[in-house]
Each structure stands twice: as structure tokens, then as C-alpha cells.
């Protein structure tokens, strides 16, 4: 099995300080900076950690590699697991501090995770507020065999189809890295088209709509036309909404394609070719039949990749999709093969 969504949690800002140059160590000490201003996973919220994932030694769930081995890699017999560190450097307004933190996070990932565990691969954390800074970070790690992806928060300040992001895609495709778009982010504007929701549950559930907006943007603004080898993984955003989005945007394209003449094929073709989705949260329908219908409606058996989302705790067990009465061939593709091909494992 290949697990495409594992969270390695930075234990605290102090962990990163050791990896920072003197200037930033002093800056942090003097300014009482406490880390990125983001709250994607409130510490006590049920989704943030399965009840047994908190290390006995203290620190947040997902910070202990021993526990990760025991609870996930060994327990599920994971062949390769991909780390998606959700440290939100992109919400730090100071671009140079954000860049320094990103470098520190990646150095920490290499030393504490990749060097320590051969089954793991990782995602390059970048300060995406200024694409040139992100490119420098991709160049720094692009040759390291442990990194298979550049990770971006789904909540960006500008949709990811904009040409603003082209330098990141140029660097990622040059190094044959996937681009992972992951749940969360704090760009400073509301998470919905109609303002800030009151509750965390609403913000969490609503993140699926932000993923939908990014898919629309990537296709209609021509990112895949400019970068034909660009591979995008949508991580921790659910996937049951995908067929409805395909139908809607194909219909829009039928009526409005003269506005975007660079899009020469139905948008759903681009989705099936360039986009993959991880399987947690499953957002399971009431019946197995309905789940099978949704997967059939994608008209592709290649789009889903197993992701446990460890240590997060959803209503559905991470492996539920593999035991939902789906065709054995699809189960194999979701569990292993789609990810092996997508991430070149």
C-alpha cells in the first residue's frame, strides 16, 4: 500500500529555531513571533488527532516518528508513505521570514524523517506568497530523492491557475515533482465567497469548495496548457464532489469556451489527465452502491490515491474505501498503483 497523505507535525517553533540563521533566531526572540498565524487544526478539535496519536512524551500528534511507524507504517504495512507537512509558512506576511522558515522545515524533514525512515517521502514546503522565493526553495531540494512533491495550501491569495504561479510550476515540472494542493491555509481573506464562517466545522467542511475553485482555475486559466506535464494532487479535500464539478465545468465550457480559446478539450479531460485526489476524508455516502456510483461517474479508475491522513481523525476509517465492496481492480489502483505512477515510485 502507498499512503499519499501523512502529516509530520513540527513539534514547536523552537524545533525550527535550531535550523535558522542567527538573524532569524534573533528576530524571533526579539519579536516574540510565535509561528504562522493559521489555525487549520485547532489543538483540541476531534479531527486534529485520533485519540491514540498523541505522543506519551508530549508534543502534538504526528510529531513522533516512532509512533508513526507503529500506528501507521507497520500497522497498515505501508510500502511508501508521503509526508505532507502542514506548517503554514505561506501565512507569514514577512516573505523573508517565511522563506527562512520553509528552508528550516525542509532541512528538519530531511534530518528527522527522510534520513530516519526509508519508507517515507516528503513534500517541499515553500513560502508561496512570492513565487520566486518558492522557486529558490524548490531548486534547493529538487535533486533530493526523498522529495516527490511541492506542497501548497488550498487557500491561496490568488487562484492557482493564474500565471502568477507559473515559476513554481516551471520549477516543479523541471524536477519532475508533483504539486500537492492541501487542505488549509490562511491568506487573510474569507474562506467562502460570502464571508467568514462562524465555526470550525463549517470552515473544515467548506474547504471542499475551495478545492473546486482551484480545479476550475487551473483548467480555465490554462495552467495545464502552459505546463503539459504538470501533475496536481488534491489532498484532504474529499473527492465525492468531483463528478458534479466535471459536469458543471464541461457544460460551462460548452457555452463559454470562446472566452478561453486555449482550453481545447472538455475540462473533465484535463481533470482525468492531470489531477489526482486522496481518499480521506471519505465523506462516505449512506450506501456502498452510492460510493461505487461516484467512482464510476469520474469515468476514470486512475484519479483516486489512498491517503490515510494520519494522524487526523475522520468519521470514516482511513481504509474504509478499500473495504467498500468496490471492484478488486479499482481497489488495487486506489491502494497502490495510481500513486506509484503519479509519484514515480
Amino acid at each position, binding site marked *: 500500500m502507498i499512503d499519499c497523505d501523512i502529516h509530520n507535525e513540527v513539534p514547536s517553533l523552537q524545533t525550527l529555531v535550531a535550523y535558522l540563521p542567527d538573524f532569524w533566531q534573533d528576530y524571533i526572540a526579539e519579536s516574540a513571533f510565535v509561528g504562522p498565524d493559521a489555525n487549520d487544526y485547532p489543538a483540541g478539535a476531534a479531527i486534529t488527532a485520533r485519540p491514540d496519536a498523541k505522543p506519551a512524551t508530549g508534543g502534538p500528534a504526528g510529531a513522533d516518528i516512532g509512533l508513526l511507524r507503529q500506528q501507521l507504517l507497520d500497522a497498515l504495512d505501508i510500502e511508501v508513505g508521503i509526508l505532507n507537512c502542514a506548517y503554514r509558512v505561506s501565512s507569514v506576511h514577512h516573505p523573508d521570514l517565511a522563506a527562512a522558515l520553509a528552508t528550516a522545515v525542509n532541512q528538519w524533514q530531511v534530518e528527522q524523517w527522510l534520513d530516519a525512515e526509508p519508507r517515507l517521502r516528503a513534500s517541499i514546503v515553500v513560502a508561496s506568497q512570492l513565487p520566486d522565493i518558492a522557486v529558490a526553495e524548490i531548486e534547493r531540494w529538487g535533486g533530493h530523492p526523498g522529495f516527490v512533491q511541492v506542497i501548497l495550501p488550498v487557500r491561496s491569495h490568488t487562484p492557482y491557475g493564474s500565471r502568477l504561479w507559473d515559476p513554481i510550476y516551471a520549477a516543479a515540472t523541471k524536477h519532475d515533482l508533483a504539486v500537492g494542493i492541501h487542505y488549509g491555509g490562511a491568506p487573510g481573506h474569507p474562506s467562502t*465567497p460570502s464571508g467568514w464562517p462562524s465555526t470550525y*466545522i463549517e470552515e473544515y467542511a467548506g474547504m471542499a469548495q*475551495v478545492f473546486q475553485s482551484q480545479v476550475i482555475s487551473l483548467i480555465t486559466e490554462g495552467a495545464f496548457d502552459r505546463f503539459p506535464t504538470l501533475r496536481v494532487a488534491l489532498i484532504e479535500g474529499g473527492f465525492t464532489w468531483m463528478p458534479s464539478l466535471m459536469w458543471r465545468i464541461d457544460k460551462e465550457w460548452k457555452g463559454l469556451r470562446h472566452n478561453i480559446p486555449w482550453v481545447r478539450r472538455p475540462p473533465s479531460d484535463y481533470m482525468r489527465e492531470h489531477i489526482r485526489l486522496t481518499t480521506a476524508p471519505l465523506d462516505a455516502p449512506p450506501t456502498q452502491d452510492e460510493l461505487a456510483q*461516484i467512482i464510476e461517474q469520474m469515468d476514470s479508475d486512475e484519479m483516486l490515491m489512498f491517503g490515510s491522513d494520519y494522524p487526523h481523525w475522520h468519521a470514516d476509517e482511513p481504509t474504509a474505501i478499500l473495504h467498500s465492496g468496490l471492484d478488486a481492480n479499482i481497489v488495487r489502483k486506489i491502494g497502490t498503483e495510481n500513486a506509484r505512477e503519479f509519484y514515480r515510485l
Partner: protein
Amino acid sequence: MAAILEAQPAPTTLKEKKDKPAVIDTDIHNAPQSKTTLLKYLPARWRRHHETVGMRGHVGSAYPRAVPNAARHDSWPPNGLPAGSDLDFMREQLLDAWDIEYGILNPLLGAGNQLNLEYGAALASAINDWQIAEWLEPEPRLRASIVVANEDGDLAAAEIERMAQHPGFVQVLFVVRTQEPMGRRKYYKIYEAAERHNLPIGIHFGGAGGGPITGAGWPSHYIEDHGGMPQAFQAQVASFVYEGVFERFPKLKVVLIEGGFAWMAPLMWRLDRTWERMGNEVPEVKRPPSSYIREHMWISTQPMEEPPQGKYFRQLLTQLDMDDRLVFATDYPHWDFDAPDRAIPVKLAQALEEKIMAGNARKLYGL
């Protein structure tokens, strides 16, 4: 792209129409004939404002439409008036042509998006008086939505009180991109008034709430603005449910207009499953979100969902399980008009077709 070939009937001839099911059109857009049309319905203080400063909304939100006024080319009346502004032509092209039993007017004239709330309220009153005088009184097949300055609960509730007794008004109108998610408390006076008068809240495609139109910033193209509207509808559904609005207003009805409906079943699953894990944050929400949605929400059919296979359309209706809640709409005179005789992409059981084309709307709006 594979076309849906299943059950695509030829356009109806007049002779056949007698055997066709009744049609109620729940989304028609009426427009003023000129910039001065509304003046006589405005008090002097706001007429002056209208003629000088005029409308001021959240500028920077505009995406040029693919066509002028987003209207069908053939909907511009031969007499040169704007699309949707000439009642005679609307009768000829829509009400008579399709033998529409009732049509619901949803004027989209920006009153709810005004930064000057009192001007927005005056504009809303003017629009409602104009609807009575120039649409409802001359044409008995028409009903209308009450336009309100929806960003201010007091002003909007007062307008509902002013209009609710008029039998021509059957709903209170919002546009989906509001300043705050619609489950928030600032809108509760509006729901109170609507519930008191048994008027559904209609939420229509469009608007500009001040923030970016996606949770990830401003896109570049009209297709993203137009095709991105379902995300705004989904956010509003989540807000109504998770804020416990239907516990606070147990008789409130909400109609989602021009937002599509294929996303609704997956959204219900997601809201249900997330609530199972994290419902303790919102103890006011006592039942699975999907049960509130199926009880309190209606959805208009335009723009019709067009999956590549008829089979998928049938699956989506079963997953949705809202046969009593889908209401037909044309969106006349807009370019993405759905024709009554060919909008539904598969042959449905007759009873279900009758519900969607008219029966559900008749019950919902008391027609």
C-alpha cells in the same frame, strides 16, 4: 463530449402542448426599460441620490458577461428595449410560447449589494412598487420576489412587512454572494419576518459580498465567476445547517435558485460525516445536516445538470432523494436558458416530471 441522446424530444409544436404537463417557471428576470424607469417610485431624497452618485457596490468584483446583460440574443425585443423589460414580448416569447402557468420574477438590480444601506432599501422599495404596477397588476400569471436590502436586518424586515400582504409576492430574494454567510445572526430578523409571513427565502445566483469570489482569491475569467457559483451555494447551505438556523426558525423555507443541484448529495454526505465527528462544536444542530436540508430546502433546476450519460443523471436524482424539492426554472431571458420541453436530459416517470415541472413549485409558493 458525448451528448445525452436519451429522451431528447423534438421542440414542441402548439398542437402537442395540450398534452404536455403544466409548467411553472421559478426564475424569470424582469428589467427596467431604462435608467429612469425606477425614478418615479423613489422618494425625492433618494431620487436625487440615484441621479447623482447612483449605485455604489463592492467595485472590483465585475466579470464582463459573455453577452450584453447575460441575455439570449433573441431576447432583445424588436422595439429596441432591453432584454426582459418588455412585458408583451415576455408574454410572447416565454409565457405564451411555453404555456407557462405561473412565472416567478426575480429582478437582479443590485439593491441588496448597495454600500449605502438606506439607499439600497429605498431602491428595493422602488423595485417592489414597480413590480406591482408594471408586472403583477397587468399579468395574472406572474408572481414576484420581494427585493430587500439584505445586509441590514431591520431595513429588510420592514420591507417584508410592507409587501407581505400583497398576494403577488411569494418569496424574499437574496443573491448568493452575501457579505457574511447566511447562517449568521445579522440576517435573523429577515428570517423572522419571512417565517412569520410564510414566505420562502430565495437565494439566487450572483452578487458581490466584498471579498474574493472564491476562498482562494480572485479568478480571472467570467467562466470562473459563472461556473464558480455552486461553491457559493454550498457554503451557504453549510452555514444554514451548522449555525442551527432551522432549529431557530423551524418553519423557514430556503430556495436555491440557479446554483445547480448535482453537488448537493455529495455535500450532504460531507456535512453529515463531518458533523458525526465534530458536531460537539454546534450542539444546536440536533439532527444530521442532510435531514434539515431535505426538509427545509428547495432547488431550482436551471442550469440543468448534464452528465455525459443519462444513467448518471438518474443516479444523481436517487442520491439526492429530493423529488419533492426540485422546481423547474428557465432563467429567461439569460443566455443559459433551459427550455421546458428539453431541459430534463432523461425520460422521467410521469409523476416525477409533473412534480418537477410544476407540482413542487405550486406547493412551495402556494399557487
